[in-house]
């Protein structure tokens, strides 16, 4: 059990390091070996987060991949599905039947999904009600605020 977790993580991390997807770099915590990963992610092009570099922290649970990793933003993000503590509201990060985590999802696909969540907020399942309302009712103002927030914290 423990062996397959580490064997899988080792492959995943090596793969992330050798052929990283666009705008994503992964550093594993030396002390914590396979339990904590530090991710740096560029904001998606064409979104208000474009110029930002976002830090994420991934905690890999002991029962991975039978349990989803816990992903958090370290950098503050102005987004309807991300709260002030950096928690992310995304189906893929929760166990079924509520969520849609599957053991065939990798950390790489997870980060790419988070990157695309930045570009495509989901205001119907919000974590920040006020931002979701703003996004729905006055998208331009939301974009402007998100851009300012990104310039302030993530550039």
């Amino acid at each position, binding site marked *: *059990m*423990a*062996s*397959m*977790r*580490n*064997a*899988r993580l*080792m*492959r*995943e991390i*090596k*793969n992330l390091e*050798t*052929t990283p997807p666009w705008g994503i770099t992964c550093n594993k915590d030396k002390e914590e*070996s396979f339990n904590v990963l530090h991710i740096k992610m560029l904001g998606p092009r064409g979104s208000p987060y474009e110029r930002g570099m976002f830090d994420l922290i991934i905690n890999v649970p*002991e*029962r991975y*991949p*039978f*349990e989803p990793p816990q992903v958090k933003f370290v950098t503050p993000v102005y987004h309807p599905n991300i709260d002030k503590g950096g928690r992310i509201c995304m189906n893929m990060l929760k*166990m*079924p*039947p509520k969520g849609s985590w*599957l*053991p*065939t999802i990798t950390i790489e696909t997870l980060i790419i999904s988070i990157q695309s969540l930045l570009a495509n907020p989901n205001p119907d399942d919000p974590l920040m009600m006020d931002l979701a309302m703003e996004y729905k009712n006055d998208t331009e103002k939301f974009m402007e605020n998100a851009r300012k927030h990104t310039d302030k914290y993530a550039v």
Partner: protein
Amino acid sequence: MNIMQDLFNKAEINTMDKFLDHLHGIIFSKEIKNIDFASLDIIDTDFIEEIKNISEKVTLLFGRSLREFKCILTDESQRSHEIFLKYNEPRRLSVSHVNLPHSQLQECEYSTIEEAVLAFQQYINSLNAYFHELERLEQKFTVMEPVKPTFKDDYRRILIDEKTWLHVEVTVNGSASNIHLVGQSELWQDKLQARLLTWDYDKNIAENIVDIFDLTKTSLNEQLHMSIDTINGKEVEAPTCAICFCVELPDNPGIPQPLCQNLNCGVFFHTSCLYQWLVACEGGRLPAFGVANGSCPTCLQPITCSEKDN
């Protein structure tokens, strides 16, 4: 105390036998049984005094009560070691947990903190070679088991290649014992048998392992790249499991099989990997008759999986 006074004053108790009978009755009666001794105003002043005057070299940290605490000791190489102690009753301390290889010291009771600290400090000092060897192994190789290695674990299973691990035990005086391979690999087995006799006791364990298997840093990396290539689909010989991304695991005898009934899916899984996932979906509840039901992690069609390979 009132109960005791009553006992002495009772007229009918005039012999020792009757007295003991009554005393026995009182002790086992409900009222006394339910008294929590911690709530009695017993304060062990000696113990409190010792906590106050503990030497500066020792750090004491307390849990929820004064009864459970840990001492942090440092060794010659500035590693810190934690010893969890429990206060049972005056002048009786026992060891509840310690991250060191098992020894007689853990079973003993100690009358003072100082006595326990002294005994463990000596033990820790004698283990310097042991700590050093384990650290070298962790630096040099990838440790697969234990998952979170501590100095309590006197063995390490290190990665030789993707299908083979090496099991090494380290004795308290820092020499290796019970070295054997986990997994099937004739190449490594031959090397181990041929060169184990040339073990150089002047070198440390990690260096000896490198010598035995001809492992240099570069060859270790090459092996990792080889395994990466296989998942990228360049040189796939056997299909890998879609859950653990491996073909063979050292501690899992099965090979991946197309377990999904949906003919358009055709993804391979280890029976044990799929079974564990289906159980995890049910919140960890084990299914009846060892057959788990759920949906395929790839195509989401219904799937069943039994605990053991057929």
